[in-house]
Structure formats: C-alpha cells, structure tokens
C-alpha cells in the first residue's frame, strides 16, 4: 500500500487555486469552501422557496384546488427541513468559513480537509432527502419536527432515507463546528485576545458549541426512531412502556438550541454592520458577549415551551414559562445596544444597513410574539395556529435570512473585489421588506382568530388574510430571484472595490486587499487597537 501513499506526493505547491471543476471538488481553501456553502445554501433556499410557493398557492383560496392534502403535508415538511438545515445553517457556515480566518488573522481553517468533507456531505445528504419525494408512498409528511408516532408508526417507507440524511447532516454540522472552534481558540493572531474578537467570531464560537452539544442529541432521536421502525423497540410507543411525548422532549432539547444556532450568527453580523454605518464603536461590546453566552445557556432549559399543550405536570409548565421569559433579558440587552450604537451616529443607509435595521425591528417583533407564546395559558390558545407560523417566520426570515442577505451585501466587495449596484440593492431591500411583511403580518391575525397551521384548507373567514399572505409570498419569492441577478451582476461587472470597502468598517478582513488573496494571512497580522470592536 505504501507506494500508493507516496504516489500522490508530487502535489505542486503552487499558491493559487487549481483550474477547472476539480478545484471545487478537492479544495481545502476556506474561501472556496465558504463560496460552495453559500451557493449551496442559495440553491436550497430556492428549492425550499418553491415549496413555500406551492403551499401559498394552495392556500390562496379556501378549498382544495391544486394539490392533494398528502402532498401538501410533504411540502410543509420539506420546506421546513430544507430551509432550516439546507438554507439558513449552511449559509451561516459559509459566512463563517469566509470570514472567521480573516477576522482572527489565521491562514485558513484549522482542519482544512475536514472542512471540505463537512461541505461535501451536504449535497449528498440533501439529494437523499429530496429524492424521498419521488419514492413510493411519498416523502416525509410529518412536519419538520417529525413527531412520533407520525414519523414512526404511521410514516412512509422513505422515512428511513430521511433518518440517514439527518445523520449525515448532523455529522457535517459537528465537523464544521469542531473546525470553527479549533480555528477560533487556536489560530488567532498574537494580540487577538478573546475580548478583542469581532462579534461575528464570538457568536459563531458559541453557536458551534451549541451545535456540538445538540446535533448528537438529534442523532440519538432519529436513531431511536430508526429502531422503533425497524427493530420494533418501544421508545415512543406507550404499549411497550415508552412515550411519544418523550420524542418531543428529546427533539426540542435539540430543537430549541437549534433555533438559537440560526440566530446567534445573525446577531454577530448585525453587530458588524450597524457600527460601520453609524460610524461609531459597537455600544456595550462586553455586555453583547455575555448576552450571547446567556442566551446560549438559557436555550438548554426552555425546550418544553414548545409542548405546553401536550400534558405536562404543572411544575414543568411554570418552570419552562419563566425560563423562557428570562431570555427576553439578554435579548433586550442586545437590541438596546444596537439602538444605542445608532444613537447620534453619522448614519448612512446603504443596503446592508437597511437590512440590518430591518432585522432589528422585525426580529424584535418576532421576539415579542415569542414572549406572548411563552405565557402558558395564552399558548393554549395560540398553539399550532398561524400565530406560531407568523412568530417563527418573523425571527427566521426578516431575522436570520435578512442578516445573511445583509452580510452578502456587506462583504461581497471583500469576496469579489467588486461593489454591488447600490440602487439595485435598495430595490431588492424594499421588495423584500414589503414582501415579507405582507406575507407574514396577516398570519398573526388569522392565527389569533384560530386558523390551524399545516392545513391545506381552511374556514371561509380566513380567506382574505390568506390571499394577502399568498400575494406577499410571491412578491418576496421573486424578489430573491432579483437578488440572484444583483449578485451575478456584481460578480460580472461590479465597480472595483477598495480594500476597506466601507469607510467605517473595522477588523482584520478590511486591511486585506479586495478581493482577499487566496491565502489571506500566511504570517499573522498585527492586531491594531483601531481595528478592534468594529
């Protein structure tokens, strides 16, 4: 075997990307892998988006017009799974890949080959998951939370493929997170102490910790499903002494930290953009760090607020209600700090700043509806209604997604060396802003009035709100195609960008030329105090 090992040892040690398609398959470069993650997540975003539009088309009017209820269920399930695991999470990992090595002054990610593995698992895993839609008996139809026994006793056969796809995604996330933690803790330039790290790095450090803590729990949950389905165990079957509610506990022990995995990096991004365009230091850096850490800690002890109506002991309901409300405190710290950062700043409103401000406002609205849902007796009314749908879409779409879009506009000059077209960017912002609110705001009302979620048909009284919502969804969906156009136009013909693409931008990535060289920092840069706490 040894001659085989030596055979591939005449790698040329050239310092640029290889040519052709193999570059993308074989790369170990954090920027290439970041790019792969970002394009992959955008592709998944479009696929998940098409599913959302199928749902909204069916819900445009009451009655069943276009699709069967069975297929509707597959659409809601796969829309959720693809957006969570395929769009939002990989997009943040892509940003982490691109930015963290530059922001901490490292040559690359700590474990570059494993980094490539983390990415390449994803296309295979998602091919598996999407292929279930074409299998006999259809794809997963039990909601993105895949509660037992819907996902075990009553599941289609394709659930087995879904289970293994989740295992693969989990492995990918864990390896990606290990890489991020090792990079941050081990590869910072001299002088970059923990409390000098940029907020995006801090938020990702904590996010990676959450991922490593909860992805294995999800793996455990789907493994128990697998055993219940194929080996006749009774984890989630009361006839054998198990409990379907136990599935919900285990799932949400993963699921609630997962929710913060999808928002903490967004906090980091916004904490870069607002100071840049307010031309002020980030207000309360230290409290921002502690707030993120507190939110992460609390995320482990609030999970059962997703299950208030399932029949928990009263003590459990009270505990989870109060612990959930406690999260409003560190989150409030963050929101007030962003506002204080803007206070009396020399503000300008370029596209990233518009998305960031919209993030602060609309995410806070999602937070407030979350606070309403945290109140156990009130949740008895809201549970499984469109109010919940409105709530989590407000935190995930104008929350997580807007922050990702803001990050793309903010750092695309650094990535490509080209500046996007400002008026097209603003147009994209306003279309998205209007689209998202027209889509999701009415859902608060239909939910409060009692419209259940995950239902292909509804009572006539909800018709108007649903029609408005569907129109908004199409505006929002097509404005993301416009986003694609803006990005491609930037890459092909954007105006050249300066190294420090924004005059107020701080941080090590901005001392590099634009586009950033293929290998950013072979030797660690000097960490100057004026580059700290952008």
């Amino acid at each position: 075997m040894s001659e085989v090992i030596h055979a591939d040892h005449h790698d040329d040690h050239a310092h640029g990307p290889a040519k052709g398609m193999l570059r993308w398959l074989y790369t170990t470069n954090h920027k290439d892998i970041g790019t792969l993650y970002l394009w992959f997540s955008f592709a998944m975003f479009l696929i998940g988006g098409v599913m959302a539009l199928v749902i909204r088309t069916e819900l445009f009017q009451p009655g069943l017009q276009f699709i069967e209820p069975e297929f509707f269920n597959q659409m809601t399930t796969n829309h959720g799974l693809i957006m969570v695991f395929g769009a939002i999470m990989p997009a943040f990992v892509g940003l982490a890949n691109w930015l963290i090595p530059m922001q901490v002054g490292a040559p690359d990610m700590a474990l570059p080959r494993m980094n490539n593995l983390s990415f390449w698992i994803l296309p295979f895993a998602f091919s598996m998951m999407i292929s279930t839609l074409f299998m006999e008996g259809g794809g997963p139809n039990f909601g993105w939370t895949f509660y037992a026994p819907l996902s075990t006793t009553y599941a289609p056969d394709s659930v087995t493929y879904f289970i293994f796809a989740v295992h693969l995604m989990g492995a990918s996330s864990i390896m990606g997170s290990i890489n991020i933690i090792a990079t941050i803790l081990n590869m910072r330039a001299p002088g970059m102490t923990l409390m000098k790290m940029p907020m995006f790095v801090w938020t990702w450090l904590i996010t990676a910790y959450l991922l490593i803590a909860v992805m294995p729990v999800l793996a455990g949950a789907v493994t128990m499903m697998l055993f219940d389905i194929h080996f006749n165990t009774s984890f989630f079957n009361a006839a054998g002494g198990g409990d379907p509610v136990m599935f919900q506990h285990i799932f949400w022990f993963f699921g609630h930290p997962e929710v913060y995995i999808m928002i903490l990096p967004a906090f980091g991004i916004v904490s870069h953009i607002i100071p840049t365009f307010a031309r002020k230091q980030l207000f309360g850096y230290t409290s921002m760090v502690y707030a993120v850490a507190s939110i992460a800690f609390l995320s482990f002890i609030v999970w059962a607020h997703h299950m208030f109506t399932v029949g928990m002991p009263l003590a459990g309901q009270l505990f989870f209600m109060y612990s959930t409300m406690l999260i409003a405190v560190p989150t409030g710290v963050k929101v007030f700090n962003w506002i204080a950062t803007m206070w009396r700043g020399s503000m300008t409103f370029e596209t990233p700043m518009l998305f960031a401000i919209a993030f602060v406002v609309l995410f806070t609205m999602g937070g407030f509806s979350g606070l309403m849902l945290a109140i156990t007796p009130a949740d008895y009314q809201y549970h499984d209604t469109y109010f919940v749908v409105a709530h989590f879409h407000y935190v995930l779409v104008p929350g997580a997604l807007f922050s990702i879009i803001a990050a793309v506009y903010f750092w695309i000059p650094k990535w490509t060396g080209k500046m996007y077209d400002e008026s097209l960017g603003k147009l994209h912002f306003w279309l998205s802003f209007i689209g998202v609110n027209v889509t999701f705001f009415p859902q608060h009302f239909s939910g409060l009035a009692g419209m259940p979620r995950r239902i292909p048909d509804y009572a006539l009284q909800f018709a108007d709100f649903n029609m408005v919502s569907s129109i908004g969804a199409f505006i929002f969906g097509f404005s993301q195609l416009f986003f694609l156009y803006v990005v491609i136009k930037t890459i092909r013909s954007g105006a050249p960008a300066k190294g420090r693409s924004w005059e107020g931008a701080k941080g090590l990535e901005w001392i590099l030329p634009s586009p950033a060289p293929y290998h950013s920092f072979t030797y660690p840069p000097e960490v100057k105090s004026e580059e700290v706490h952008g």
Partner: protein
Amino acid sequence: MSSSTEVDNSTYYVPEQGWYPVFLAFGLMLMVTGLAGFLNEIKNGGAGGWTQSLVGFAFVSFVLYRWFAKVVEENAAGMNNATLKKSYVWGMGWFIFSEVMFFAAFFGALFYVREFVVPWLGGEGDKAVIGEYLWPAFEATWPVVANPNPEIFVNPGESMASPDVSNLSAWGAYLPFYNTVILLTSSVTVHFAHDAIKSQERNKIIGWLALTVILGIIFLILQVEEYIHAYQALGLTLDSGIYGSTFFILTGFHGFHVTLGTFILLVQLFRAIKGHFTANDCFGFESASWYWHFVDVVWVGLFIFVYVV
C-alpha cells in the same frame, strides 16, 4: 517525499487540495442509502440486499485508510507545527464531547422513562390518569418485565438487573461485573502504555498496548455472550418493551464504541511496532487513549444506571 527542510515549520500547514473528502462523502451516501434500502426491504418482507452498503463501507474504509496514512506521513515529514498539533487536540476533545452528548440522549431517554413514563403508565404521579385510562392492569416497576400491552410487546422473561448486594455468590457469576473490572483495568493498562511512550521503552509500549487490545476483545466477547444469554435464556430482546429497548440501545452503542476503540488501539499498536511514537509526538496514540477512557467512563455510567440502580 518532500523533505522537512523545505517546509517552514513556523507556518501553519494548509494541505493542498485532495480527493479524500468528496470521495468519503460519496462513500458515506452509498453506505447509508444501501442500508436504508436494505432495512426497508426487510421491513416489507423481502430478503434485503447487503451489497450496496458493503461496497459503500469498503469505499469509506479505503478512503479513511488513505487519509489517515497521509496525515501520519505529513507529520513524519515535519509539516505539522505546534499550532497545528494543538488543532488536532481541540478537534479530538470536541469530538469526544459530541459523543458524550450522543449518549446523553439515550441516558436522558432512560431517566425520563424511569422517572416519569413508567410511573404515569402505572397510575402514579402527576399524569396518573394516563395509566388509569390506557392499561389499568399495568403496574409500575423497574425493570419493566410486564409491559402495558403484552400482546404487542411480548414480556421479557427476566431482566439484566444486578443481584442483591449481599448475594456475593450471584455477583461471582454476574457477567457485567466482570466486564466492569475488565474495562477499568484496560484504562489503567493504556495509561501504562502512555507512560512507556514517555520513557520510550519500546517493549513496554507494545506489551501494555497489546494487553489493552486483548482486554477490549475479551470485553466484547463477554458482551456477545451476555446478549446471547439475554435473547435465548431470558427472552429479553429489542422488541420486549421499554426495558429491552433502553438496555440494548445503551449497551449496544457502547459496545459499538468499544469495537471502534479497540480497532483504533489496534492501529496504534501497529504504529507502535513500526516505531511511530516519540515521547513528544504521539498524538495518534493519545487521542486513541482519550477515546478509550471516554468509552470506559460511559460504561461506568451504564453499569450504575442500567444494571445496578
């Protein structure tokens, strides 16, 4: 072979592009889709074909072999500076943490079942009403040897619970007790092997490491024996209700980890015979031993909560 002189040891070595990751990802998909197809065929009464998952497994093993060989070779060529070595340490540490959380899911299930589900089904506690409506005849005991609905989940004849503390002769015939002693001993022997690497006593390294591997194998043999006993003599199976479910998933995944750990230690043994480890550079061995200690700690938890308490 690139000589170490042309590598600047102060810089962090970023490997050139390579084919391992994408091929490994492909192999993984081949393996798990094969397995999923197999399981579904079995479930629907078919024979079930193993071929695809085996090909996938072979593929994965081959790529992993090449990948690890490459990493060993790079280290021997002096390409890894101190910072990179520390990245490996962080990587292994956090990987073990992820494994801890994987077991936490199953331990959590065990605790939840014992503390809440079984009492409720038996008509005790806050949600006693569940039991009163569903299966009024069910009595809450642990281990559950009489299931709520024995027509669907056949009752196990007996559980694996440990004998009474005072009953010393029964402990003398209790396999899990021997397994505990074996695994704890192996944690000590692997530590002696580490000491031997630090003092560079070649024969001792090989001796202690070989002993550790042998102890691992003995543990596995005893566990197989225990499983056979459970299935054939006790009627305790995966489908005999929640006790069997939690028992087999916890001990089974632990056994799987022992298998993996034994194999990793075996690889380290071959590397030790080849003289790979020096006093200051033996990360392959050290990470294997951390993994082994972790597996050992999990067993202690298992022994306490699955067998004794």
